[in-house]
């Protein structure tokens, strides 16, 4: 077999050298059987990329020789757009970055602005923020739990995910007014207090989420075919995961015990809770699914604890009517559903931010895909991409 030497081969990479040597050995054997590789363009419109990610894969039969993700088909220029919006207006915009668990998008930006203004939201507001943050995480990861099965061909799980996700979204809606885009955070607190009866309903919906998690353990995790497709596929060793800047469940699935909710000093209420960071030593697609499943269940307990310990008091600190953030710069990172998300806010003391740099988790998580997709089979592309779990809006913001 021959292969196109002009394709991007890095001669410093031992594995690629080994591959070329193997190819040369094959070529000696199969001199008469001349074959050539094929370039397969996966995306930008393809069911596996749920959005507009494009992957250019060079194939040898069904084996991927090299794969290159091409991002940016949905770039919306959010970093630039924030510069012409006042601070309260920015939250409307950044809701749309990771559109599935959008409450969590607002929080790091608001925290960065609060840090610059040196205001701190009252404890009740912090608890409400944390509870909604975790509910956003649940809503987000439930989608993943169903979607991963769909990528592997089991269609039924996604319907259960959408059905039970509704309970969480309803609660988010009744508290904030928005199912997908709550826009509930304000600098110095949250917009409103919780509606009457909300706590009780939320607790029952958390129980439904846990039932859903049990169902997924039966239907998906316990399925032999699912395990055969996921175990040992797309293994990321811990050092490689850290070198590529992975975060979130992708990192914890590789056995790295790193969670910003616990490890970073945050004004949010995580420090008051009794919870556990789940990790899995294997680093394969299965462990990433498993970690996310456990995190969803853990998050439901966290929400219940938050609602039990909800302190009384106001939900808004005293802030001026027209918000001008003093000059300075700050960077705040939180553990979002997809991984670490950070906002670097530079202010010149005006109504609008001077510059905002957004660090999104999916962008870094996707950057490992060329390394990870090299040498796998075509069916594993879907498995690996699904297990990395990206949201296109989180890649191209």
């Amino acid at each position, binding site marked *: 077999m021959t292969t196109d030497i002009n394709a991007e081969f890095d001669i410093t990479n031992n594995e690629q050298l080994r591959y070329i040597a193997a190819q040369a050995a094959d070529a000696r054997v199969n001199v008469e059987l001349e074959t050539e590789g094929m370039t397969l363009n996966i995306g930008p419109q393809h*069911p596996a990329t749920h959005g507009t990610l494009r992957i250019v894969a060079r194939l040898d039969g*069904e084996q991927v020789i090299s794969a290159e993700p091409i991002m940016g088909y949905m770039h919306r220029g959010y970093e630039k757009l924030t510069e012409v919006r006042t601070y309260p207006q920015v939250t409307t915009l950044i809701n749309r970055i990771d559109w599935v668990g959008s409450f969590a998008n607002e929080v790091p930006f608001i925290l960065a602005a609060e840090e610059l203004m040196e205001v701190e939201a009252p404890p009740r507001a912090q608890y409400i923020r944390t509870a909604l943050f975790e509910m956003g995480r649940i809503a987000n990861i439930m989608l993943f739990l169903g979607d991963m099965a769909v990528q592997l061909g*089991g269609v*039924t799980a996604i319907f*259960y995910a959408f059905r039970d996700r509704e309970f969480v979204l309803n609660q988010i809606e009744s508290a904030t007014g928005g199912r997908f885009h709550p826009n509930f955070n304000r600098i110095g607190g949250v917009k409103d207090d919780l509606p009457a009866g909300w706590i009780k309903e939320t607790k029952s919906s958390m129980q439904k989420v846990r039932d859903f998690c049990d169902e997924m353990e039966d239907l998906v995790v316990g399925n032999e075919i699912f395990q055969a497709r996921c175990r040992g596929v797309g293994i990321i060793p811990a050092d490689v995961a850290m070198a590529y800047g992975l975060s979130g469940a992708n990192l914890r699935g590789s056995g790295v015990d790193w969670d910003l909710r616990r490890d970073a000093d945050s004004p949010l209420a995580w420090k008051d809770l009794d919870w556990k960071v789940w990790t899995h030593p294997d680093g394969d697609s299965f462990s990433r699914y498993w970690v996310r499943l456990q995190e969803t269940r853990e998050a439901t307990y966290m929400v219940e604890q938050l609602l039990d310990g909800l302190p009384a008091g106001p939900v808004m600190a005293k802030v001026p009517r027209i918000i001008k953030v003093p000059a300075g710069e700050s960077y705040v990172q939180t553990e979002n559903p997809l991984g670490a998300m950070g906002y670097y806010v530079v202010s010149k003391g005006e109504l609008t931010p001077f510059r905002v740099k957004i660090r999104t988790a999916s962008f870094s998580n996707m950057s490992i895909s060329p390394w990870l997709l090299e040498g796998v089979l075509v069916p594993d592309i879907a498995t690996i991409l699904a297990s990395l779990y990206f949201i296109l809006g989180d890649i191209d913001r």
Partner: protein
Amino acid sequence: MNPLISSFLAINPPYWVDTLAKIGIGLVAVLLPTGALVYLFLFKMMSFMQSRLGPMETGPYGQLQLLAEFGKFLQKEDIFPSKADRFVFAAAPFVVLVSTFMLVLVLPGGPDTHFVDLNTGIYFAMAVSSVSVIGILMAGWGSNSKYSLLGGIRAAGQLIAYELPLVLSVVGVVIMAGTLNMKGIVAAQADFGVWFIIPQIIGFFIFMVAVQAELTQPPFDMPVAESELVTGYLTEYSGMRFLLFFIGEFATAAVFSAIGATLFLGGWTVPFVDANAEIMDYIGPLVLAAKMVFIAFLIFWFRITYPRFREDQLQRLAWKFLIPLSLFNIVVTAIFKVVF
């Protein structure tokens, strides 16, 4: 002699009338169960299993949805991809359908109700069921699309791999019945006392797995794996040609279910009723249809629940597990046949 017609009408019509009637009945025999399976299982059972209702607006409980779908497909534009091999592209769905229609020929619906009574019935069925591979390969190659090509090649590899366990699982039944004739197999089950599913439970299991793979339904649907290959060899098809493929897929599911019912569940016979009674010519097809729906239910149940295998895992399952198991089944069956 025209058993099919004469049994219903008690007349002996000329050859051309007989042939036309057989074509008409053949169309009904293929399309009616297909529509029933699509509505019952794909529209309704799948929806109920996925906690939704499925079609509800078209007719009572969405019963006219099939007609709506049919109309929709007819209206769609018939697209040939540029640079496609037009003849191969156009012919592929018909090749697939031909294999299905030929399968139906040998199915007996009663002691005298059948299209043709071949002495090598099940052998013929196994042979013509492989013709669909050619159609799928034609579709994969003729579409001039990389996804289609990958899907077509996968389908070819898969169907060839599962042809073997399918045939070998049938061999056990043939040994027990002592005949290749489908009616003979049914009669042998009536004589034997119990349906062959009891003594041939391993054969039935292998048959079901192999049929699932032959139909390229989940968990063996890599040729059309929609999350990897868009829809594999179907990617470039639209409108009527896609509908033909779709009918082919579900008609084959119906026919294979009927073959399974004939081989393992006693075909048209009902326990405690004489298999050769004249009444069986009339209720036999209905009994067969009921058994067919049961086996199709199993097929669709797996389809809806399981995720799909990977290529290499599928081949490993066929060559390392199913084929040795079916050979073992044949040996055991042969020993019992000789000893008892």
